[in-house]
């Protein structure tokens, strides 16, 4: 992720940045292939949401209002009655903290536009269209509506596929029998491969794994996610200072 940030110039060049329908359409077109994989991921989320006993309305509202795949997926693992609301909100915050970095990286391109345009577009910020948009800017294209256009396509794919997946979940009983309980882990392992930046990740990841396994053994609930994640990133942060 930091590779993207450092390789893209922090300020747009002299050429003015536009925000119009043409830029939005370009973004939408480029997001179409990505929407396929978002849709597959959404189907899995929907099926798992059924196992976590979320209703179709709850899935629709969560996908439509939160629109954050990894946070929603992790929250499913916390979703048991009575709802641990504080843990869910804290987990959502921690998993989504990276949005702050991505928003900061993309902010120069929105500085010229009204708060309405900027703060509406940023609702549709996701890992995938952020990467697409930064790539587009790096190529010298100057249309900030690209983020909104690509984000809308991913939004439709995500909300639609999660609701369909939730409906399919009613048909799939006892997912462990077919190994489907492992789908959750497999999706995250796949994401992890994409997140790997190089050797500097190794120590933070090993620390995260050790702390998580230990915490899962000794503590109730899903606190191991927060503890492992924080421990690993603190190790990375401390080592970065040296």
């Amino acid at each position, binding site marked *: 992720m*930091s590779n993207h940030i450092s390789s893209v110039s922090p300020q747009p060049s002299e050429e003015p940045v536009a925000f119009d329908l043409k830029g939005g359409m370009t973004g939408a077109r480029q997001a179409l292939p990505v929407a396929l994989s978002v849709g597959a991921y959404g189907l899995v989320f929907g099926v798992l949401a059924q196992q976590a006993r979320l209703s179709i309305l*709850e899935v629709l509202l969560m996908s439509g209002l939160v629109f954050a795949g990894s*946070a929603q997926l992790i929250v499913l693992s916390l979703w048991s009655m009575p709802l641990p609301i504080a843990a*869910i909100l804290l987990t*959502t915050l921690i998993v989504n903290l990276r949005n702050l970095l991505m928003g900061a990286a993309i902010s120069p391109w929105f500085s010229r536009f009204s708060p309405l345009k900027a703060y509406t577009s940023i609702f549709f910020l996701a890992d995938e269209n952020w990467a697409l948009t930064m790539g587009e800017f790096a190529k010298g294209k100057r249309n900030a509506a690209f983020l909104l256009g690509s984000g809308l396509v991913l939004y439709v794919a995500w909300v639609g596929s999660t609701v369909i997946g939730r409906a399919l979940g009613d048909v799939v009983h006892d997912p462990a029998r077919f190994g489907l309980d492992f789908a959750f882990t497999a999706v995250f392992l796949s994401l*992890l491969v994409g997140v790997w930046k190089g050797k500097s990740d190794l120590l933070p990841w090993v620390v*995260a794994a050790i702390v*998580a396994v230990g915490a899962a053994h000794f503590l109730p609930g899903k606190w191991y996610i927060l503890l492992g994640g924080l421990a690993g990133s603190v190790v990375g942060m401390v080592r*970065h200072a040296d």
Partner: protein
Amino acid sequence: MQTNFLALLTIFGMALVTYLTRMSGLWLMRHMTLSTRMKAGLGYLPGTVIVAIVAPTVFSTGLSEAGAALATVLVMARTRNVLLAMIVGVGVVWGLRLLQTHLR
């Protein structure tokens, strides 16, 4: 009905928290700059959080899960295809579990 209301409230809370993380980057850059150390720490979070999620399943459940995890990572590293990696992972865990119950 009460749990349903709490569920909706939780979802609205998640929506608010998530939107705050999205808009705060834009907002902060108009008012302050993050230290490089903070940026570095934030940059590690996605990876370490995901590692923490999968670690107990991968390392302390059983051989089937560990083997399937390895297969998933290898397929993903080779093909960069999330869907394919997921199908292989689920298939391998299914096969290995079947094998284990038959050998027992």
